[in-house]
């Protein structure tokens, strides 16, 4: 199926319009032909996507990953200040939220973490009886309880596979209760069975925020920049973004983590919505522009010096601060470019010694896929391959841009499939391989291996990855990880490999992919 005009193709590639009259968003498969299984050239993926031939095959063998509910929402929504979250689910669905209070404790109050940061969430703990008889009343009782205990400004309801299967009437329960509670009730339809892509959870959350919380703008806050962050962004990233924007007299509306309900309500008053990850913020950005005229841009994210320059310039354009931004860039370059150059020189030196550029295998989400490739290029690293937890047409254009900028590369699309990742890591044998600290594989290799991003509670400056400080901090971190290999050596010596030799001999990491759709 090939399209006659680009316009026609554009329309079919993904849905641009947000329909807030619906209870929730379409899932990413429907909205943008999302997939989470592919191995081949990035150019091959692009071609398939454009011609509408990209299909989401099944895996004959898969390892655990997350779902739309527990991958992100369950550990993020609870941090919203002045709000409470109700998991309308069996007790296990919220279990990943349990460790998070302790996790955030790693960030000292001196760095700006709220001293009082209790995470207010409850679970309706659905049991057999609720599945059989319905749990509408239980949900209503939970909402009243949340209002009573926490007196919040908003109560988020997260749905689960269970409520989805039994056809719970969430909106009906909300309609019944809303007139009697002060808090704004915000139902988020994020049951895991809805989608293979965890990104659907993000869209579902933004849909609910747009539909129930964002208010009609009372005034324009011309110095406010909306910045939405994902799980992989650290406290230091917040600080860096605030630092940079602060220097040109702008304020960052950092959401949703530790944001207040007011911040979410005021999203419509901002001057612009800036991305950290384009596909993560896509739904929110489009919705804000469509309903309230808040402009947005999708690319680039502020990773690496060149991209940070451009990111700031875009923001400057929408806030009338272009001159201030140029001045800021100049100043920041004076501080950071020499440091970057030092790192680059060291990578170049190592490259010269070994006879070729230092190769790195990285990425994580779609945003990082787009951001890391140019960043590695800036550092003088070669990236013959990359991994992405999923792919959908929202980033098609930008992916084309990256390929034209850094050249073609191998791409493995998979959501935390450790065996597949281990396969390409072993066979491509890069000098440095990066893995997700939460759900990555442990590689038994003598060459470099380290984390793609820091753990959420890591407050250390080395955990920065965005902005100028991040470009240098992460570049430096990669350099150190490349050089210091005692850990890998010990790991390889003392522990067995998780996979048999046979596995690495297979030609394709997607050995277990089912051919028929």
């Amino acid at each position, binding site marked *: 199926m090939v399209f006659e005009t680009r316009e026609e193709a554009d329309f079919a590639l993904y849905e641009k319009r947000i329909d807030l009259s*619906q209870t929730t968003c*379409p899932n990413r*498969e*429907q909205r943008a*032909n999302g997939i989470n299984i592919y191995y081949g050239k990035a150019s091959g993926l692009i071609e398939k996507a454009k011609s*509408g031939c990209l*299909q*989401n*095959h*099944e895996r004959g063998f898969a390892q655990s990953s997350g779902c739309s509910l527990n991958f992100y929402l369950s550990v993020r929504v609870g941090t919203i200040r002045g709000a409470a979250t109700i998991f309308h689910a069996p007790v296990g669905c919220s279990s990943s939220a349990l460790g998070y209070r302790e996790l955030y404790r790693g960030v000292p109050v001196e760095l700006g973490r709220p001293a009082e940061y209790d995470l207010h969430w409850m679970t309706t703990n659905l049991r057999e009886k609720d599945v059989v008889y*319905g749990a509408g009343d239980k949900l209503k009782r939970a909402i009243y309880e949340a209002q009573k205990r926490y007196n919040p400004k908003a109560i988020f309801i997260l749905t689960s596979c269970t409520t*989805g*299967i*039994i*056809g*719970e*009437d969430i*909106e*009906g329960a909300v*309609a*019944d209760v809303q007139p009697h509670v002060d808090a704004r009730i915000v139902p988020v339809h994020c049951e895991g069975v809805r989608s293979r892509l965890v990104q659907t959870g993000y869209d579902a959350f933004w849909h609910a925020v747009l539909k129930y919380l964002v208010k009609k703008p009372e005034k324009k806050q011309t110095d406010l920049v909306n910045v939405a962050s994902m799980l992989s962004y650290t406290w230091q990233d917040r600080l860096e973004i605030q630092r940079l924007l602060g220097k040109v007299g702008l304020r960052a509306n950092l959401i949703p983590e530790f944001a207040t309900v007011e911040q979410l309500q005021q999203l419509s008053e901002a001057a612009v919505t800036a991305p950290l990850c384009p596909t993560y913020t896509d739904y929110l950005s489009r919705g804000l522009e469509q309903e309230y005229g808040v402009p947005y841009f999708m690319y680039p994210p502020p990773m690496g010096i060149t991209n940070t320059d451009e990111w700031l310039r875009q923001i400057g354009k929408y806030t009338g601060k272009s001159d201030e931004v140029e001045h800021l860039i100049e100043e920041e370059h004076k501080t950071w470019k020499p440091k970057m150059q030092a790192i680059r020189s060291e990578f170049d030196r190592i490259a010269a010694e070994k006879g070729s550029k230092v190769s790195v295998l990285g990425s994580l989400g779609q945003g990082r896929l787009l951001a890391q490739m140019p960043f590695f290029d800036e550092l003088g690293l070669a990236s013959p391959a990359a991994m992405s937890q999923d792919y959908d047409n929202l980033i098609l254009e930008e992916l084309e841009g990256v390929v034209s900028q850094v050249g073609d590369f191998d791409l493995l699309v998979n959501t935390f499939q450790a065996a597949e990742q281990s396969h390409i890591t072993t066979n491509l044998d890069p000098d440095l391989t990066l893995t997700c600290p939460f759900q990555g594989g442990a590689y038994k290799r003598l060459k470099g291996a380290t984390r793609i991003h820091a753990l959420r509670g890591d407050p250390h400056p080395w955990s920065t990855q965005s902005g100028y400080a991040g470009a240098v901090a992460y570049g430096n971190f990669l350099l150190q990880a490349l050089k210091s290999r005692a850990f890998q050596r010990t790991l390889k010596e003392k522990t067995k490999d998780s996979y048999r030799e046979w596995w690495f001999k297979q030609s394709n990491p997607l050995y277990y992919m089912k051919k028929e*759709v």
Partner: protein
Amino acid sequence: MTKVRSVAIYGKGGIGKSTTTSNISAALADMGKRVIQIGCDPKSDSTNNLRGGRSIPTVLDAIRSGKKIEIESLVHEGFGGVICIEAGGPEPGVGCAGRGIIAAIELLRQQKVFEEYRPDVVLYDVLGDVVCGGFSVPIREGVAEQVYTVTSADFMAIYAANNLFKGIKKYANSGGALFSGIIANSVTLPIQREIIDDFASRTGTTIAEYVPRSETITRSELLGQTAIEYDPDSEQANVYRSLARTLLQNENKYVPKPLEAEELKEWAASWSDRLLTEKKNDARAGLESQNIASTIT
């Protein structure tokens, strides 16, 4: 520009709701209306009589295939240009048909099928045993606005209608569809009419139409056709035309008053007594025993 008339038709399995619905669709199409008929039953045969007995691929089949979904694969044209859609569902004994209905209707909305085809009337033909949340989706906010139920004078069918009334009452306050009339099906004897009329009066409901059993229907269904297609000038076809007109014009919608279990039992028992008495009298009078439909318990 008139709003779309969206109607859900519920009825006990086998009572004749798909026959009724497809005949209404055909009659409406005959009047020049654009109709979408959506079958919401895992049997997926609601629209067969608009298509010469041929079934169509279902919405859930399309979801299951994993391929990118095109509207064209979901909608199929039938007699008179009626747009036919089947939600589909699992085989007997597996999965969850209720979730199937939820997923199918959600997909149709997301795919903007109603915006694309701009119907005058949308008919949801739904399984009458509203056994779980999923089957009530057509009567929840934003789907159908009016509900009709097909019932005969048989107790089981009336029981199902009474259950439906409970469901409607439950969703009435949160924007759910309201009730607009009973379609009394297979009504051939005066006493069958009386039974249904009495039930209507007890539950505060109205009768939309009385539809007799008919050989025309028996014959037309064998060919996979509606009466409108098979024998457009027949009496039966005209009954459906009258019902279609009612459906089109009836603005009356209200919350029914379902009977409680005990009340319903007593009501059924009283009719049982009367029917048995009459049967005895008829037998004594030597009259041929009439076909009073199946057992009333």
